[in-house]
């Protein structure tokens, strides 16, 4: 592998990794508070991508209006998801919550299939993202460069909310102990809604960028990015935002670089993440940044 190709693949890896990171943050935040794998989280990518398409193609909005609207809509979908599928089961056994999550995921996918149809739709790539620039002799799509930058900006904003605001403090408290948080006069259900809102907004940003990167949008587009982002969250240490980011970058870089180094492995690419998951759970179940497991009662 020449150094140019290596550099090219490195940039691709960082770009893919930042997408995984964006989605992984949503998993890790919901897991931190509810101790639940939100199976439907990946499908929010699809919701965002379709809303953005409809904004541009049907309502002829410019992209800088359509994209924020799609992000907002997806955020509200996230809150609705929690209210409809998870809130009634707060005191139920965990297995019920997981089954409800799987049901919600299938419902979103199949509703999209019925309402929109299974034929993949082309995602319009707005002009500012469609250029190709020359960087140190490499020809790179600007989107590949924008993706990590957008991720970084969103991550800083999120870290600010979580660590410097009252809502953030309440979120951190709720992820430790529901009862005590309630005793402090905090409306835990509202905090959970905020968590879902933030996670879904990040997923929506990820979904739109994913759709610009791979412009074939279909009802099941969110399944694999979702699963892999979850694995990234576990890799980094679930419940930890920085961990999710690191895990996302590691997974993205790993996938791209392994396939670049050994092209014969390309057909096994989708299995790579799961093998990694098993290895992490076998040897370091708490992930890279994780604290020991605590069962929340």
């Amino acid at each position: 592998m020449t150094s140019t190709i290596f550099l090219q693949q490195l940039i691709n890896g960082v770009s893919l990794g930042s997408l995984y990171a964006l989605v992984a943050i949503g998993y890790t935040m919901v897991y931190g508070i509810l101790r639940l794998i939100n199976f439907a989280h990946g499908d929010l990518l699809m919701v965002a991508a379709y809303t953005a398409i409809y904004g541009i193609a049907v309502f002829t909005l410019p992209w800088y209006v359509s994209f924020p609207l799609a992000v907002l809509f997806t955020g509200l979908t996230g809150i609705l998801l929690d209210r409809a599928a998870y809130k009634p089961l707060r005191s139920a056994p965990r297995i019920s919550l997981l089954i409800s999550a799987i049901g919600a995921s299938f419902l979103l996918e199949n509703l999209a299939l019925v309402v929109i149809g299974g034929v993949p739709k082309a995602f319009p790539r707005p002009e500012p993202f469609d250029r190709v620039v020359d960087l140190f002799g490499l020809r790179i799509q600007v989107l590949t460069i924008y993706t990590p930058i957008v991720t970084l900006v969103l991550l800083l904003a999120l870290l600010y909310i979580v660590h410097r605001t009252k809502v953030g403090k309440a979120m951190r408290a709720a992820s430790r102990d529901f009862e005590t948080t309630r005793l402090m006069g905090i409306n835990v259900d509202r905090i959970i809604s905020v968590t879902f809102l933030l996670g879904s907004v990040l997923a929506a940003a990820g979904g739109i960028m994913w759709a610009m990167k791979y412009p074939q949008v279909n009802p099941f587009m969110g399944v694999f990015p979702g699963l892999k982002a979850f694995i990234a969250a576990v890799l980094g240490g679930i419940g930890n935002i920085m961990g999710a980011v690191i895990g996302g970058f590691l997974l993205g870089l790993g996938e791209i670089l392994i396939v670049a180094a050994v092209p014969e492995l390309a057909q096994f690419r989708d299995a790579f993440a799961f093998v990694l998951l098993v290895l992490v759970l076998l040897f370091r179940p708490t992930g890279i940044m994780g604290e020991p497991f605590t069962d929340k009662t």
Partner: protein
Amino acid sequence: MDRDRLKIFLNGVTLVAVFLVLFAFSRYGTDYQVRILNNMAIFITLAVSYNLVNGYCGILHLGPNAFVAIGAYTSALLTMTPAEKQMNFIIQPIVWPLNVIEVPFVLSLLAAGLTATLFAFLISFPVFRVRGDYLAIVTLGFGEVVRVLCNALQNVTNGPLGLKGLSPCTNLWWTWGVAVLSMVVISRLIHSSYGRALKAIREDETAARAMGVDPFQHLLLAFLISAFFSGVAGGLLAHLITTISPTLFTFLLTFNLLIMIVVGGLGSTTGAVIGAMLFAWGGEALRIVEKPMDLGFVIIPGIPGMRMVIFSLLLMLVILFARRGIMGRSELNWEVILTRLDRLRRP
């Protein structure tokens, strides 16, 4: 007649009744009816064995589709004649021992079950190191890895092309025979000390451990038995539809099984049977929502994919509002029915 002999007699009567119904259908039923009955029996086998792990052990295992796939491929590769294999594997020739082997259907089913069990044993070590959500995602990952391998290992599975032209060996006797066998084996297991230990682990693993129950050993046995029957059902399925490809064994299969056992009642063998029968029947009955409907004054166009929306909604509604499903954790057996009847007679 005392209670035990009465129950044996009634079980015998039920078996004879099932036999007569099947005989009537195999003689006079249409192909479509026989097909639904076959599907029903395969679903029963799958749901009952899946419920052993999910309902009785209380862990969320999301990879039965992997074991069905392994069973289907094993059995299919063993019954195909060398000539058929040569015709199927056009891109890459099949690897050595498989290209000459041809065994009877029975042996291939047994091999299907055993291969699935072997794979279950191999993955059980990473799987049972974790619990809860992690176990769910690891087993789901196993299902995906198997699918990726089915697509990639072209000289074993023929890749995305799949295997075509299997001999249609599966008939009502095979499917219902295996279904009855799985019901008997699993309900015997549940009513043994092993089954009680499984339920103890489900309720409180730490307490069960304190009572001297080894969770790994017990969960492993349930997992292996479940995988065995899933594998055999996979073999039956392969020889029922005679064409298999990796797309048949996606997570959707697991999702359907999950609907059956949740609707039937997690932790009830008869519940799983009822769930599977309802699913096999309902899946066909609901086809009307995907066909155009003529109400005389207005024609409603059919909506493809509507069935899956209804199934996902059903799963969520059951889990949100009627978490016990139809049967909850109780069983519907002669003991229960006779006790009810007694109570009716002597109020």
